[in-house]
């Protein structure tokens, strides 16, 4: 772990930023501050050696969620810059009392926690959980990135249903917001006519997409995987849509395609599980995919489910953005 004081300094920064987010009366300011908050959070994850988490947080927190918030502000009729809370900032005494009391109870609870970084803490020594993942994963799967092994193999069930939750969220947004309406009309090209944006988009979007695909497929060897790569792919689409307009983006990637893709990813994941069943193993026990060499079977299974996760996550993020941004 990086020097502790760096983590502590960053933690102080996030607390101050969080207070700023809550105090800001202008909702646009609050949204942008929340993006900064997430970016500092990504630095904290890096300093705590959680690179996979940092990768996800940077793409989601600082990119996608900020855009969604701003989109929602525009759609709820709050003119940018004028989207204010109505009341003057005042302290709500009841809410403050509830928060302080709950916080005190939680802080009292932490007194029994082992110290931060203590290698003998129960979470680190349980023989069937953390110790098994760290000591045996290389031998059982020949995959160096333990985060990917735990995500896609040891806890494959959990991840499958997380993917289902993401997919269900997209369904929810579609049900709430999708109307029978003409395809997005080309808005008066504001950013599209500016050479600097066009050049920037042309020079970065292909690399963002290539990088997203790399992160999805190389999750076994280094930080990365379906969730991280999927959000990076979606971020590439978002940049394109911001500069060229929603109509052009939807011409390049028709919403029908992303609808199918979101479902297909979940199907790929569950399909790998069913394939394991048909080959005589347990559901999502990838050893069955290659009887001669179980480690090879594990690798194949993980690669396939990561592809499924990446497809679903990318398509869901694009769908959500399309629905929220559609005027």
């Amino acid at each position: 772990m990086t020097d502790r004081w760096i983590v502590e300094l960053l933690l102080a920064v996030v607390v101050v930023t969080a207070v700023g987010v809550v105090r800001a009366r202008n909702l646009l300011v609050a949204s942008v501050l929340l993006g900064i908050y997430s970016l500092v959070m990504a630095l904290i994850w890096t300093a705590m050696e959680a690179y996979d988490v940092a990768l996800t947080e940077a793409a989601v927190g600082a990119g996608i969620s900020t855009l969604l918030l701003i989109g929602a502000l525009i759609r709820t009729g709050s003119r940018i810059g004028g989207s204010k809370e109505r009341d003057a900032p005042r302290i709500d005494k009841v809410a403050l009392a509830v928060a302080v009391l709950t916080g005190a109870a939680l802080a009292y609870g932490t007194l029994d926690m082992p110290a931060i970084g203590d290698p003998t803490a129960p979470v680190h020594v349980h023989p069937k959980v953390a110790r098994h993942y760290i000591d045996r994963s290389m031998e059982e799967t020949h995959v160096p990135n333990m985060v990917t092994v735990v995500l896609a193999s040891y806890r494959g069930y959990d991840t499958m249903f997380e993917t289902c939750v993401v997919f269900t969220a997209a369904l929810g947004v579609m049900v709430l917001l999708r109307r029978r309406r003409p395809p997005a009309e080309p808005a008066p090209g504001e950013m599209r006519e500016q050479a600097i944006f066009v050049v920037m988009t042309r020079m970065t979007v292909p690399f963002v997409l290539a990088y997203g695909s790399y992160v999805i497929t190389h999750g076994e060897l280094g930080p990365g995987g379906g969730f991280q790569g999927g959000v990076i792919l979606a971020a590439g689409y978002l940049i394109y849509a911001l500069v060229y307009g929603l109509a052009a983006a939807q011409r390049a990637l028709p919403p029908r395609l992303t609808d199918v893709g979101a479902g297909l990813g979940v199907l790929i994941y569950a399909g790998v599980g069913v394939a394991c069943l048909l080959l005589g193993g347990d559901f999502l026990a990838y050893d069955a995919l290659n009887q001669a060499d179980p480690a090879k079977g594990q690798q194949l299974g993980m690669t396939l489910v990561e592809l499924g996760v990446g497809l679903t996550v990318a398509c869901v993020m694009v769908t959500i953005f399309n629905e929220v941004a559609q005027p």
Partner: protein
Amino acid sequence: MSLLATGLFNLLNYWVYVSLMMIGLYAVIAKTNLVKKVIGLSLFQTGIFIFYISMGVVSGATTPITWTDAERLRLGLSRVEVAPERAAAALAAVEEDGLDAARAALGPLAPADAARLDELLARPYTNPLPHVLILTAIVVSVSTMAVALAIVMEIKAAYGTIESDEIVTAELETARAARS
């Protein structure tokens, strides 16, 4: 007083998670604007993320991606003063017989260098489990936030406002009109 001092040293991350969650909780209760409530929920969630990742931290540990013995040795050798031919011998030994043989092939080192090298060679991994839980939770949190925002947009379309107290007033008036 000593409780505060040991807590600050040992449990600071946990206290930060409590503060962030409570800042979020305060926003959810005190703010009437629905978008602000959604933002408060988002702060609450990130507080929990800090809690999980902090539990996974191990002092002096590296990220949970397996290093082979040769990779560990190569990094270790780049941080200490050692003659090139002895380093080459150690790297050859590690491929054949593992770290202990490589350490023997390296011969004696300055005490500070030896301690540094041994620490790098025995570096533990952080706990991968919290990382897995939280990286999926981040993606789920943005998806659920999108659903919440979609509901807020529909509320705006139905009531013409996103202030919770104005919505309550409007509801009360509708109910009163229906009764009379």
